[in-house]
């Protein structure tokens, strides 16, 4: 059955677009027919993360206004079967689209045989957010282990539930296990205790994200990258496959071991 998933966060810059690109590409790699929709009208970015910026002819607003057919606007990704991008308009603003428009668009896509429709939601809680969740069956919240991002995530969870979507799931992005190990970053249990929604996955903060964005090549394509592997687990869990969470503990290392020998740390380093 076709499913529309909105990727949202409230706060900007936590990784919604990267998450949308990798989830969509990963779902396609797993054999699904996937459309990923950039709902950030006026600030289009998803095309760049996917490396498809040179192939845009039509956009979301033109589809909605009937200037072109949905099929004409969808860009087929040549690297993987079944992955399509619907780009945002760059020269319009968010008032060009209404929640009803989005509901109709999602229904059309489901009719066209897409298994998954991923909506990359813009930051904020205004029109763009309302449009993005209008056609969604399910929401994934992206956050980072920071006070401001988690505060906004909490607000968004409330709004998602108010729109009568099922309980959203969480992706914890930019996780730095060494900072967590020395107590300078909230760990997954801290975040889950506060947000109290199911965890879909943890994505490490890693240079691979930057290099893959530079190249316009979603990291989920790279099986050797630990970030790519993290996204593959998220893809599986999204499809309902149970995948264990890897151990994120840090090897204590020389300093911590020495400290313990010298009796400086009563309960061990970690």
């Amino acid at each position, binding site marked *: 059955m076709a499913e529309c998933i909105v990727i949202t966060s409230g706060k900007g810059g936590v990784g919604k677009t990267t998450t949308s690109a990798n989830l969509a590409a990963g779902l396609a790699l797993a054999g699904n027919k996937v459309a990923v929709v950039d709902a950030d009208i006026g600030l289009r970015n998803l095309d760049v993360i996917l490396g498809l910026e040179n192939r845009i002819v039509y956009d979301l607003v033109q589809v909605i206004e009937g200037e072109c057919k949905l099929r004409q606007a969808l860009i087929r990704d040549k690297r993987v079967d079944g992955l399509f991008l619907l780009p945002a308009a760059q020269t319009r603003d968010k008032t060009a689209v209404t929640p009803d428009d989005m509901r109709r668009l999602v229904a059309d896509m489901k009719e066209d045989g897409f298994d998954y429709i991923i909506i990359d939601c813009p930051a904020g809680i205004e029109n763009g957010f309302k449009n993005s969740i209008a056609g969604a069956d399910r929401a994934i919240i992206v956050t980072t282990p*920071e*006070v401001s991002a*988690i*505060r906004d995530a*909490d*607000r968004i969870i409330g709004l998602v539930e108010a729109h009568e979507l099922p309980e959203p799931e969480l992706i914890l992005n930019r996780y730095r296990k060494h900072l*967590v190990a*020395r*107590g*300078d*970053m*909230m*760990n997954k249990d*801290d975040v889950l205790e*506060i947000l*109290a929604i199911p965890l879909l996955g943890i994505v490490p903060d890693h240079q691979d994200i930057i290099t893959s964005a530079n190249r316009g090549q979603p990291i989920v394509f790279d099986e050797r990258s630990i970030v790519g592997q993290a996204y593959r687990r998220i893809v599986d869990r999204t499809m309902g496959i149970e995948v264990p969470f890897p151990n994120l503990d840090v090897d204590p290392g020389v*300093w911590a071991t020495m*400290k313990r020998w010298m009796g*400086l*740390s009563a309960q061990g380093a970690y």
Partner: protein
Amino acid sequence: MRSLFQRLHDALGTSQKSSKDDAKQRLKFLLIHDQVDLTPAQLDQMKNEILEVITKYVEIEQGDDVEFKLNREEGCISLVSSVPVRKVHARAI
């Protein structure tokens, strides 16, 4: 003067309170205030009014022993208060 041991200890960073505990505490406080949508002044006023009502019935220890806390668990906010009672006012029936 601090001992060499203590300084070494500090240099190795084991005595510092970890910053994530600060983050978590600030976040919990923020979320409670986002949700109840009351200013600290309003909360103070509420506390004073509640205490006023209590003192109509019992004599209480005023001051630092009086505790008013907003807690948040599983998204629900609760007001937890601890007020030491000195004696119950003798009341004619």
